[in-house]
């Protein structure tokens, strides 16, 4: 399988980046970490905007950097979407889009100009000046501009971080579409669990300039030894398929390896793949199968691991079929139920969020 292999060390004042990783050469890889963990620096090394001496970077078999050479940014077939769109103020939207397009040999172009414009919904913006665009519009132009260089790797540095909630909601569907339609690998820097669950196929966790974990979001998000499970919005990600709809009660059913999930009606045809987010705080545990409860989603689960969260709370990692769930419960409850690794329990899920 094609892969991206990278190894960089770099000193910048007090900060030290010392990252080595291999990531799949397809799909979306999220670079996740607190601010100051080195996500952006790592992305800049990959782009060649930072020169890490002795660094190594191989992208799907092609060497971009090794001990013998350093390909400068403009010779790397990549697209970069910056947090602050960085549109050229002296060029119209059309000229901004054409900037990289014209400099890309036709044989390397992957997306037709009109197609990128249509994907990002930019038809009406083409004659406009960048300074007259909203934040969300600017970012859509920046994404299209990067795509038009026919990148073999798309780098996105928190493209939503500078936007308000409304603009985020405006952009996310466009990102989803990229995810579905583009074959090129994407590195997506983020510090929002929600974005990771929604977009990522693979997760790279960074802490203090080091890669501390890699894996699928489902794995990494629920590992109790990593800080992700201890975040306030800690959650598990489940991949599910729409099984059918219940018209009478306005419900939809989703199947995953651990059972069937009921949700309010979803506008997807049966067979559609969806990703479901279940927050750790929305999961409670019982030893006996609950009878006569208002909660619809109850799954037989096995306790895999328990870890202290705060003085009052513990986190429980549960195996449900092949999937993992997180439950955040009080330490007192864990004691009363005598929860131990291996124990059979029932997980009651109060609410699920769909990340289509």
């Amino acid at each position, binding site marked *: 399988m094609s892969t991206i292999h990278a190894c960089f060390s770099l000193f910048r004042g007090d900060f030290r980046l010392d990252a080595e990783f291999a990531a799949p050469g397809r799909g979306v890889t999220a670079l996740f970490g607190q601010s100051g963990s080195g996500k952006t620096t790592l992305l800049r090394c990959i782009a060649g*905007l930072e020169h890490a001496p002795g660094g190594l970077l191989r992208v799907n078999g092609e060497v971009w950097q090794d001990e013998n050479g350093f390909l400068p940014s*403009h010779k790397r077939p990549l697209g970069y979407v*910056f947090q602050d769109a*960085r549109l050229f*103020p002296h060029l119209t939207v059309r000229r901004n889009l054409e*900037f990289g397009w014209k400099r890309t040999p036709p044989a390397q172009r992957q997306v037709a100009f009109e197609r990128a414009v249509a994907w990002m919904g930019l038809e009406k913006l083409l004659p406009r000046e960048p300074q007259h665009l909203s934040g969300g519009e600017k970012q859509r132009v920046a994404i299209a501009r990067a795509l038009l260089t026919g990148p073999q790797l798309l780098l996105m540095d928190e493209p939503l971080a500078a936007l308000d909630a409304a603009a985020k909601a405006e952009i996310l569907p466009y990102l989803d579409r990229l995810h579905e339609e583009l074959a090129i690998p994407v590195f997506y820097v983020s510090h929002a669990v929600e974005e990771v669950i929604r977009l990522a196929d693979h997760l790279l966790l960074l802490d203090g300039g080091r890669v501390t974990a890699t894996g699928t979001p489902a794995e990494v998000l629920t590992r109790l030894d990593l800080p992700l499970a201890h975040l306030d919005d800690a959650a598990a990600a489940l991949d599910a398929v729409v099984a059918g709809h219940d018209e009478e009660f306005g419900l939809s059913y989703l199947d995953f390896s651990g059972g069937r999930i009921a949700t309010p009606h979803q506008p997807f045809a049966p067979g559609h793949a969806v990703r479901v987010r279940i927050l750790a705080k929305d999961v409670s545990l019982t030893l006996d199968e609950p009878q006569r409860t208002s909660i619809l989603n109850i799954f037989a689960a096995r306790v895999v691991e328990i870890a202290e969260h705060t003085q009052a709370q513990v986190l429980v990692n549960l195996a449900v079929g092949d999937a993992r769930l997180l439950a955040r419960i009080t330490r007192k409850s864990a004691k009363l139920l005598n929860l131990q690794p291996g124990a059979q329990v029932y997980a009651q899920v109060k609410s699920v969020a769909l990340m289509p």
Partner: protein
Amino acid sequence: MLLTQVDLEAFWLTLRLAGVTTLILLFLGTPVAWWLARTESRAKTLVEAVVALPLVLPPTVLGFYLLVALGRDGPLGSLWQTLGGGPLAFTFTGLVIGSVVYTLPFVVQPLQNAFQAVHENLLEAAATLRAGPWDRFFSIALPLARPGFLTATTLGFAHTVGEFGVVLMIGGNIPGQTKVLSIAIYDHVQSLEYHEAHVLSAILLVFAFLVLFAVYTVNRRFRLQRQ
């Protein structure tokens, strides 16, 4: 006739000198200004100080050194003659060299400021869009620094038109060759020809005002456009 033949010659000579000087300075000053705007080298402060020298030195001091350098036995003068050129002092070529030195800061400083205002961020973005270093300079930095070029051109031109001391020291007063407007005015005043002095002075005054007014108008429009 408002102007005598000699005054008319002085007028055209001044325009020619200012035009040639400005053109040379734009070509020389652009790389210097770009380097100053982007470098983190220690030599930067040194170069900045040298560029700014003509701002503070009395024109006579600068003119004196130039006279020595351009003279038959001076380093520039002898080099020029070895290369097959004629004498430099008291010639138009000598005047151009003197003007280039004297007007250097008026061209380099506005360009440097304009280049500094071009954010590194945009150049990085251009690099990720497959633009090499030269390409980035011509497609991003130059267009964004346009107001700086306008300021540099007009200031350079106007300052050369207005120079007196340096010209007097290295050019003298040869009609049609080195006699520029400011010298002609000085001559008229010395000869108590106040009418002629008035006419030439008024021309220079109106010219200087119009140039500066035009620069500020265009720069204002440019700023408003960018907002």
